[in-house]
């Protein structure tokens, strides 16, 4: 087993965040009145994935992937707030 602190933190975070993500997804499906609303997290995932992946081809972003991840995170928060206002 690797002994560095970063590895330990990552391992613990992967377990906790995976459970958190699954819980939020199941909450969405349980409380949503329609399947379309229940699938909002899936749409957010696809949007963020495609955006980050495409930005990875832009020369500047290629070396600053964390910038595009941060941009995607901010956009997802904005999208969530707009969805909240719409539904």
């Amino acid at each position, binding site marked *: 087993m690797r002994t560095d602190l970063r590895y330990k933190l990552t391992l613990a975070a992967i377990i906790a965040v995976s459970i958190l993500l699954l819980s939020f997804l199941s909450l969405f499906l349980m409380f949503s009145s329609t399947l379309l609303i229940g699938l909002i997290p899936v749409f957010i995932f696809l949007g963020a994935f495609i955006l*980050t992946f495409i930005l990875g081809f832009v020369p500047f972003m290629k070396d600053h992937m964390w910038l595009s991840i941060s941009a995607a995170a901010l956009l997802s928060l904005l999208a969530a707030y707009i969805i909240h206002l719409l539904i």
Partner: protein
Amino acid sequence: MTFGKRLKLSLLAGCLCTLLGSGLLLFLIPSIRTTALAILITCAVVFGLALLLVFLLEGKSSKIRVPVFTALVVVAVLAVSCVIIYNFGNSMVYHPAFDEEAYEELTEMKSSAVELSADGLSGWRIPAASVVDDKPRSVILYFGGNGENSARKVLNILNNDELSFLYDRCDFIFIDYPSYGLSEGTVSESALRDYALRAYDIAVSLDTTASVTVFSYSLGNGPAVYLASREEADISNLVLLAPYNSGLDLFNNYVDIFHGPFALLASYRMPVYSYASDVTCPVTIIASADDEIIPIESSRALFSELSQSNCNFITVEGVLHNDFMSDEQTLNSLRTAIGG
């Protein structure tokens, strides 16, 4: 940057954004906020435990590490499931709402209905139509269903001649549950018991109240039977429409798993049966064989707990849970039971 690394980072971004976006959405919905917060706390505990285990199992073989981490994940998933089920029950049972449109309409009809407000609770009273203003009269204290609020209910009664027997010779009072309508507080099982006593105090504090008839429907049957079982409450008549024997019956009617230790997962367990033996006033139970929310067996079980000498059980046929107040058989039974 390699294609593999770009793919990995994009997946990471997708997961992070899903977590942030759906998390924010869940926190913005008031009825789910508590559940989302409880899940967040559970996952923070899981993170702490996982970190502790990583340190404790450092240098141990994978034969030990794999089962321990698997157990942690299973326990964490179970814990989160319990949190979700418990909170989902809450949002299934309680539907607090304030009907602004009905409230404003009633406010304009001042002569027909009077707003009541005391002790953090709020509701409406329809004064008896055929009784002189200050003459003592009986009061019907209504305990509504989980989706009802006083303004809409009172407006519906006033607009429906078929229901005029509810306020013809007696006052009709409906006080909103905590967090419903303009009532303050948070609704819960214990808050409903407390509410029943406070609503009764409001009814008897009126100068014109001579006696109190309690009429309850669906969720309201729990606090209504609790009130009737209390020595300090002098109830002349108890009319239960679609009552249940225990709050657990409501849950088990959806998914039949809330037995034994699993009963603790139900957020509303109101043991109505345990109050029934202390009820001394005459009781009328009206239940439908076709009620899809509260099975008639649950109403019958409650009937068997009540003193049989002054209890009457009326079965109506072909009536769904939300259709009682528009069903002729039910209304005739109610007229007889309430004495309208």
